């Protein structure tokens, strides 16, 4: 009897401490404050395959304890066929629980998406390739990095200049900074967009395209995240560089983020529910965003 009791205690201990368990999830660092802006970020998700569903299940489970009401989509929302049945298989079914809970998805397009996907209602793009919207003190800018024409560059310049919110967050498919081997940074985009982002004090940029998770050290005052593994995965594809703050390339992943006042809390969560990176960013002062480097996020890679 004593042996059985010991075994039970051991099992409970292992379950409680193993990454990716419900107990592990319950101990997440996000403060989950009332009234804060809560959202999730997924990139390169629309495969319709089992790992996408597993990530979606993790998101649904997390939503119960961390009720985010927004998911930003970082492009490649659909791979392969893009018929109505594909939208069911690759979007509506995996995220059914979130959609029925009223979570709003706001998509940006990737190179595997189709132009006409801007008309798909649940992506909430209202027929626009690029657009912006607000949540409390945060303004989001969704861009189309696959075709960054002069008109779009002028639009983001003007729109950022007009934005009065405390936080300015941009997201799009191709990363300005990335240390994954397959694609890496889109330097042509960086040369065009970074000066505009710096000039207007963009705080954080989310991208996908490389099928890994990477957090970069602030670049010219801006925090960059690559989160392109919410369906696809390129295992072991990272070659971390000096500018890499944290990364995870061993499994699919997504991000959850909370903005409360001048703090942004973030977690990167794997397909098994393990928190692979977490931290807090303090909103950059406008002068800092334009020049001197901000501090690295407080937090840890787990």
């Amino acid at each position, binding site marked *: 009897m004593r042996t059985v009791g010991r075994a039970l205690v051991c099992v409970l201990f292992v379950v409680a401490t193993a990454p990716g368990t419900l107990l592990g999830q319950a101990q997440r660092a996000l403060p989950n404050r009332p009234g804060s802006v809560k959202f999730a970020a997924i990139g390169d998700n629309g495969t319709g395959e089992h790992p996408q569903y597993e990530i979606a299940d993790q998101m649904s489970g997390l939503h119960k304890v961390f009720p985010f009401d927004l998911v930003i989509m970082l492009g490649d929302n659909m791979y392969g066929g893009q018929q109505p049945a594909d939208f069911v298989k690759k979007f509506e079914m995996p995220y059914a629980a979130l959609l029925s809970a009223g979570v709003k998805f706001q998509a940006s397009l990737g*190179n595997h998406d*189709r132009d006409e996907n801007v008309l798909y209602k649940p992506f909430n793009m209202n027929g626009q390739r690029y657009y912006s919207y607000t949540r409390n003190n945060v303004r989001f800018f969704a861009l189309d990095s*696959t*075709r960054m024409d002069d008109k779009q560059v002028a639009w983001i310049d003007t729109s950022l200049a007009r934005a009065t919110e405390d936080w300015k967050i941009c997201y799009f498919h*191709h990363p300005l900074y990335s240390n994954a081997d*397959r694609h890496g940074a*889109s330097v*042509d985009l960086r*040369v*065009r967009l970074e000066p505009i982002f710096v000039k207007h004090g963009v705080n954080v940029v989310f991208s996908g395209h490389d099928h890994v998770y990477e957090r970069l050290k602030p670049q010219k005052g801006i925090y960059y995240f690559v989160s392109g593994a919410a369906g696809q995965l390129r295992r072991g594809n990272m070659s971390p560089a000096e500018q890499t703050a944290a990364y995870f390339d061993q499994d699919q992943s997504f991000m959850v983020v909370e903005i409360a006042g001048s703090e942004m809390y973030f977690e990167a969560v794997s397909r098994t529910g393990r928190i692979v990176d977490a931290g807090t960013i303090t909103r950059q002062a406008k002068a800092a965003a334009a020049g001197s480097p901000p501090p690295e996020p407080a937090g840890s890679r787990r």
Partner: protein
Amino acid sequence: MPDKDGQVGTSPKRRGLRHHARSTLPRLLRFAIEQLLLLPLGVIIALAWVNAAPESYYRFTFSIAFLVNDVGIAFFFALITKEVVEATIPNGVLHPLRRALLPVVASLGATAVPALLHVRIVESLDEPMLTIGWRVALATDLAIGFFFARIIFGRHPAVPFLLLLGIACNALGFVMVALFDPAHDIRLVNGVLMLVAALAIAAVLRRQRVRSFWPYVLIAGVASWVGMYWSGVHPALALVPIIPFLPHAARDPGFFVDARPGARDALSQFELWWRYPAQVALFFFGLVNAGVPMGALEPGTWGLPLALLVGRPLGLFAGAGLGLALGFHLPHRVGWRELTIIGFVAAMGLSVGLFFAAAILPPGQLRSELSMGVLLSLAGAPLALIGAWLMGIGRFSSERQQR
């Protein structure tokens, strides 16, 4: 040690070397220009630079892109137009015009098949956004094509056939790009009025027998550039409608045959003056538009070269078959075997292909994939050479070798 002129370090040997360098460089430049090497040179430098130091490459090329793509390259297209204009006068390959009918009909197949094939291939490779590149599948590089056609065929009716086919394919491509990809927000009425004014100015200059090409370029050409810019048509084509107004010689000196240094007519003078600057513009065109970072490439990159190398010969068969069914005739000594080789040669779209890619897409992944596809279409040259050798065509024919 000072030499006898009191200069330090200028021994006769060094002076000789310096003189040798001074005389060699212009000769090398002239050779590069005459052998059409400046565009490939620009392409090679672009590929090396963008993959070694991308940030400095993009900063430099973005800063000159407008000057090169919208202004400088206009003189290259003007020179191509000059060749076409001369080809319509006696002794030219387009004279009389009915000779051009079969290649024009054949160009319908030679453009439609690779364009459709490109769309199918990139769809199957899961890159639906690349379908926009079907316009690039219409392009043919006349100069490169002519160069390889002369190597393979020498003086053979297949060469003018290829040129006519290329002109028709490119004309279709320019129309499609203008229709589907207006350069920016357009002011159509103002643009059309300005274009009409430009043509009227050119007509008046011609009527007044103005022999210098400068008023045509500086007055009519600039008005045409503004008109096209406002109309949403790519302004690099600004001189295309103006060139036919320039007074020209009575007979065509030949396709891509340089004008005689003593030629007095305005068209020849224009060529003599702009030949070298246009080649320099072509060098910068290659530098600005062919910088493809290898990391940007996806499987869809293969769509365009496959579509061109397979689709151009097949489309040419289909188009020529249609022409024959309509009662037109293939030129003497041009059969299906020659058409295959012409198809491979016409698959190469270097200058015009890069131009179409830059006209329809901003810098980024999609343009990189299309530009690399254009570069890979140069595989048409070895395919044409090997095909000609295997089939015993042109200079590889047994009759010719026996002679």
